């Protein structure tokens, strides 16, 4: 059965801390892994990872995919209160006809 598992489910840190969010997947015909940030209703896109071992960066956020071990991590350095959100990862089928979402990690960054 296809599945995506995220950990931890929730996390409380203080501003300035560095956090690592985990996403493991077991998906047949895997193509890509996506990370999203959800603050209110609509998730907003962060990263798409297709190749193993290539880090993607955007400001304080970075992410990498390991297709051998079937997981991805999302790192956030020097966290800010604005980083408080639910972070979702999704595994994408090869022909983009299905996206499997994990349960999400709820991050709370305290001042």
């Amino acid at each position, binding site marked *: 059965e296809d599945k995506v598992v995220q950990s931890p489910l929730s996390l409380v840190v203080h501003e300035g801390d560095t956090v690592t969010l985990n996403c493991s997947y077991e998906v047949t015909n895997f193509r890509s892994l996506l990370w999203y940030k959800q603050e209110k209703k609509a998730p907003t*896109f962060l990263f798409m990872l297709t190749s193993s071992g290539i880090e993607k960066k955007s400001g304080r956020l970075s992410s990498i995919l390991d297709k051998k071990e079937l997981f991805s991590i999302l790192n956030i350095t020097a966290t800010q209160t604005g980083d408080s959100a639910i972070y979702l990862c999704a595994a994408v089928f090869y022909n983009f006809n299905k996206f499997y979402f994990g349960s999400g990690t709820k991050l709370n960054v305290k001042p």
Partner: protein
Amino acid sequence: SAVISQKPSRDICQRGTSLTIQCQVDSQVTMMFWYRQQPGQSLTLIATANQGSEATYESGFVIDKFPISRPNLTFSTLTVSNMSPEDSSIYLCSVVGAGVDTEAFFGQGTRLTVV
């Protein structure tokens, strides 16, 4: 990127009634999906909206409860029928563009409360 307009953004409905949610995209897209996100939960795929044919439903979701239309490549509707309080959720429309290795874009979501 695709710009998605989803309406209504929220509604409070009486049990036993139906609500239709609209999703309009500013460009032609290949895939359109409808998700449900119950309180404290992740996104659960309801169905894939197929242009000009019946939607493809995931396990646990049926057409009688969640009829979906997609008359063209830029528009889809999801109806939540005969609502009960258990249908209170956020409903999200999502699209995948026509390019290679494109991410999924989301509408603003509809927060539904059934009383």
